[in-house]
């Protein structure tokens, strides 16, 4: 049995190397991780922007630049045009009577407009007087880096399953599957070989992605265990595509439908209060996300690492078992 599984893995590996598929599967998430790594610092420290009339006295404009990103415009009309653009940028212009007018479109975040008024008031009146101390506790301000890492790991798992699904569809379309069906290989062996193959390159990819994004401060042993737990969930889409579709257009249609479910539910759970998380309990990708939260987050997830991992493994395996029944009929395997 082991030998037959390894034979199929070897075949998949040969095909993947020949088609450069493995290169793209591993390289694309790594490029994305590098891109995010470069992008995240600009997300964590955002300086507000204000549009200013260049007729405003230079010392005021210069002082404003120490608070905000200042965009200068030649007159009131240009400031108005800038304020009317799609982003949240208030403006300040000199009125005909020489006074200042702070202008907003009306749909901005009120705090942004208020910030511009507070700074203008402070600069013009020069009010000072209180002592302020800053006490920084930790290096990171947001969980953006951790969430990006977790979402990328979900994406790697999903895409690997999707690609495996396309491979099965192709094997069916080109009748290559017939060679497997007349061999002694059983459906269990066929499915196990696909799962092991996906697990191997998924684990390798997510380790590199994680190293790029968060470094060595997390448990990579737990990450490998989490990915092993998540293999059935990751490959599920592949088996669904293989079982339910017989060409690539249908596969794309079904894949396009399942992808938001797989990715959106965990992402939505980030923004939903913990007391409502029971709504997500029936979705296996949620448990995969909770397993990853135990690795990357310092907050308290809905369940511990082992419990969440176990639920991910069991729920994924049940679904794979169910889809296996359909796959058996479609692929004509023993």
């Amino acid at each position: 049995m082991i030998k037959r599984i390894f034979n199929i893995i070897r075949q998949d590996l040969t095909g993947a190397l020949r088609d450069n598929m493995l290169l793209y599967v591993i390289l694309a998430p790594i490029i994305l991780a590098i891109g995010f790594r470069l992008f995240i610092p600009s997300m964590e420290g955002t300086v507000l922007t204000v549009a200013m009339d260049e007729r405003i006295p230079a010392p005021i404009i210069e002082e404003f630049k120490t608070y905000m990103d200042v965009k200068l415009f030649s007159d009131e009309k240009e400031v108005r045009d800038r304020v009317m653009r799609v982003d949240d940028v208030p403006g300040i212009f000199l009125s005909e009577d020489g006074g200042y007018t702070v202008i907003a479109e009306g749909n901005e975040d009120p705090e942004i407009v208020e910030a511009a008024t507070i700074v203008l008031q402070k600069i013009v009146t020069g009010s000072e007087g209180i002592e302020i101390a800053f006490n920084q506790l930790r290096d990171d301000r947001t969980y953006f880096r951790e969430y990006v890492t977790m979402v990328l790991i979900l994406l790697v798992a999903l895409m690997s399953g999707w690609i495996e699904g396309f491979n099965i569809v192709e094997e069916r379309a080109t009748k290559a599957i017939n060679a497997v069906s007349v061999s002694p290989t059983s459906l269990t062996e066929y499915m196990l070989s696909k799962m092991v193959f996906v697990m191997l390159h998924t684990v390798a990819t997510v380790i590199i992605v994680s190293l790029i994004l968060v470094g060595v401060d997390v448990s990579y042993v737990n990450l490998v265990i989490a990915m092993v737990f998540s293999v059935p969930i990751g490959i599920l889409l592949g088996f669904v595509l293989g079982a339910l579709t017989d060409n690539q257009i249908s596969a794309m249609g079904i894949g396009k439908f399942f992808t938001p479910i797989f990715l959106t539910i965990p992402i939505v759970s980030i923004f939903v209060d913990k007391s409502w998380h029971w709504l997500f309990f029936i979705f296996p990708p949620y448990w995969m996300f909770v397993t990853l939260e135990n690795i990357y987050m310092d907050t308290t997830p809905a369940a511990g690492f082992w419990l969440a991992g176990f639920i991910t493994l069991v729920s994924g395996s049940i679904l794979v078992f169910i889809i296996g029944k359909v796959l058996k009929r479609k692929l004509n395997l023993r």
Partner: protein
Amino acid sequence: MKKFFTLLMQELKIIYRNHFVWFTLFLLAAMVIVVWLLPSEIEHKNSNFFYDATQSKMLESRLVSAGFPQENIVGSIEEIEEIIKDDRSNVGIMLEIIDGEAKFTVVYNGKLLPQEEKMIIAGLQRMYDEITGSEIVPVFEMETIRPEFKPLTISEISIPFVLTYETIVLGYLFVAVMVFLEKQEGSIRVYRVSPSGILNYILAKSILWMVLSVIYSALLVILTYGFNVNWAQLLLLLGISSLFMTLFGLFVSTFFNSISEWLFVAIGILILFSFPQISYLSPSFSPRWITLIPTYPIIFTVKDIIFDIGREGAFLKTMGILSIYTVVAFVLAYIAVNRKLMREGR
């Protein structure tokens, strides 16, 4: 023209035979249900915590009278530090009086930019002036261009989002799948020796997906928002957007031999195209590079049209930008199809 229509019908037949209509209707139903189920608003958690160490409790009474959540006012600096340690996004502020002078301590996570630090100082100075009853005479006048602007509900906000990242990208994904199908079935070799020409090949594919994408989008708008939109502007914008995405998808697909090779790169590009979502949800974040991504003007202009925001000239400007992007995508697709797709396997 006849060749073009023959090709168009041929493409239509292929996607009809492959149950595309059913998948799209299924997707449409799912998207409509998602938009319907979204709440009108999500309550935001206040991440600012205060500790008033003054004897008079002047800060605390001011906060309470202003309706600040009671659970965000705590009893010690240790408690504040615990809360800040517990969640990185929390910020703690303590006020104390030392030798008759007020002193604020800001407890936070992450590095503050110099501008952010100065903004906090200005904000706390203002807060202190307010709680001590100092007279604040505004040195400016305030003008709001459109004070009647009604905030959108979460489900309304999601409509431009779904249109930009679901219906418009339909052609981007499916045109590539069709190219790989043609490669696999060998029909691309047959096409190569037919008299139909590259222009008809590209036009038949891109116009077909543009039309399907526009129909899908229009149904979604009707079912989630209704008929009360500027249909001429909306359909034109959706049409040119999906035409651009389809041509761009065709261009990208020519560089790959199989769907497995292409998929990760295609999704990577979609992730890049999804960055303007951040600006859409948080409009104060709009660095120059994000505004250059084609989906940036698309998502904001779709929002302007559907909710009749009436930003003067925005529609024409976006159409102009998208026309340039579309022409570039067409030229790239033409060169790629001519030099790569039609010469493969020779």
